[in-house]
C-alpha cells in the first residue's frame, strides 16, 4: 500500500532529490574518475607491454649477433683504451710498413666531438684519445704506413701530420693519432660508464 497523500509525495520527491545529490551524483563522478584512471592504467600497461615486447625483440636480435661480430665491435670501440697496447700496435704497424720507428706515446683524452651531433646525440660520440708517434720513411713507405693505419682493427685517425724532408731522401714524420673508447676512466681512476 503506497500512501499517496500530497505530503508523502512531496517527501518522496525531496528524498529522491536528496539521494541523487548526496549519493548518485558524487558516485557517478567517482565512477567517471575511476574509469579515466582505468583508461590511464590500460594505456600505461599497453605501453609497458609494447616496451617489453620491443625489448624482447631487441634482445633476440642482439643475441643473433655472432660472437665474431661482437668481438669486432668490441675491438673497434673498446671499453677502455690501453695506453700501452696502442703504442705497441703502432710499433707493429711501423715495422710492417718498413719505416724507422721513432717512438709513440699516449697524449691523453681529448675533448673532441663532432659538430654534426646535437647535445642529445653526444652520447653516440665515443671518447677520443690522442697518441703521438714519429718515424722516418720514404714517401712510398709513408703512404703504406698511412694505409696500414686506415685498415687497422680499431680507428687510428690521423689528426695531425707534419712531414719534413731529411737527408738521404727520407722524410721525418710526426703524427698525432686519435682512437676511441666506449667508456672512460675518471680522474680518480674509477671507471665511469657513458650511459645512465
Amino acid at each position, binding site marked *: 500500500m503506497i500512501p499517496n497523500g500530497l505530503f508523502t509525495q512531496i517527501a518522496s520527491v525531496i528524498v529522491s532529490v536528496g539521494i541523487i545529490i548526496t549519493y548518485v551524483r558524487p558516485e557517478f563522478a567517482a565512477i567517471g574518475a575511476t574509469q579515466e584512471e582505468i583508461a590511464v592504467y590500460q594505456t600505461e600497461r599497453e605501453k609497458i607491454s609494447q616496451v617489453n615486447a620491443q625489448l624482447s625483440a631487441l634482445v633476440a636480435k642482439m643475441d643473433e649477433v655472432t660472437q665474431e661480430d661482437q668481438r669486432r665491435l668490441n675491438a673497434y670501440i673498446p671499453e677502455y683504451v690501453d695506453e700501452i697496447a696502442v703504442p705497441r700496435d703502432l710499433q707493429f704497424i711501423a715495422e710492417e710498413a718498413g719505416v724507422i720507428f721513432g717512438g709513440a706515446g699516449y697524449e691523453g683524452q681529448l675533448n673532441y666531438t663532432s659538430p654534426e651531433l646535437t647535445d642529445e646525440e653526444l652520447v653516440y660520440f665515443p671518447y677520443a684519445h690522442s697518441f703521438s708517434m714519429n718515424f722516418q720513411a720514404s714517401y712510398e713507405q709513408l*703512404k703504406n704506413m698511412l694505409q696500414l693505419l686506415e685498415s687497422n682493427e680499431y680507428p687510428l685517425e690521423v689528426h695531425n701530420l707534419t712531414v719534413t724532408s731529411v737527408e738521404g731522401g727520407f722524410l721525418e714524420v710526426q703524427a698525432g693519432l686519435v682512437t676511441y673508447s666506449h667508456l672512460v676512466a675518471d680522474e680518480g681512476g674509477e671507471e665511469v660508464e657513458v650511459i645512465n
Partner: protein
Amino acid sequence: MPNTPQKSFIPRQGTATKRRQGASRRVYVFTVLCYFLLFSTLIATGAVFIYGRVIDAQLEDEIVALNEAIGVFNQEEMNKVRDFDIRLRQAQFRIDNSVSAASIFTALEAATVRTVQISELTLERMADTEFVLNANVITDGFDSSIFQRGIFERNDVIESVKIENLALGQETTGEGQIIAAGSQVAFTARLGVPLTKVPFIPNQSTPAPVPVTPPVSTEATSTSTDNELSTSSAALPANTITP
C-alpha cells in the same frame, strides 16, 4: 405509512436502497512523477552502487596487471641493449667519418706539377669536417707558381686554395752557391680538403691489417653485462679485420 400521499413538492427518497456508486480513483500526473522519480532514484542508487564496485574491481585488476607488466620488465636487459646500441652507433659514427689520409697524398701527387717541390707539409684534421694542409712549395718561377695554383684550384679533392708567404728566392747548390738569382719562388699553399672527398673505401688493394692487441678486458671492474661481452671477446683469438 406506506399509503401516505405525497403532498410535499420535495421528492422523497424511496425506501429501495440505491446502489452506491464506488469512489472514483483519480490518478494525478504529479503523483506518477513522484513515484517514478522515487523508484528511478532507488534503482539508480542500486545500479550505481553495483557498478561502482565493479569499476573498483576493474581498477584493482588493472593495477595488478600493470604491476605484473612492470615486473616482467628487465632493467638489466634494457641496459645491455642500450649499451650495445650506443656502442654500435659510436662505431657507425666513426666508420661514417673514416677517411683515407693516403688518398690526400694521392690527390696531392695528381695536383703537383713536375717543376714544383714540396719542402714541408703539415696536415691537420678539423673535427669531422675537413683536412687543412699547409704545404711549403718551391717552384722555378712565377709562371710555374701560377700554373700550380690553377691545378690546385681545379683539383676535385681540394676545395679551397689559399696562397700565403709568397717570396722570390734564389736557387742554390748544396754548398750554398747561387745557381740562378731570383729563379725560385716559394710560397705556402693552404689547402682545404673536405672529409667527404677522401672517404676510406676498403678494397682489395687495401693492405691486410696488422694483428693488434685484443680489446681491453674489464672483467674486474665493469658491470655483469660488460663482463659477458668482454668474456666472450677475450675467449676469441686476436684476428685481423677490416672495419
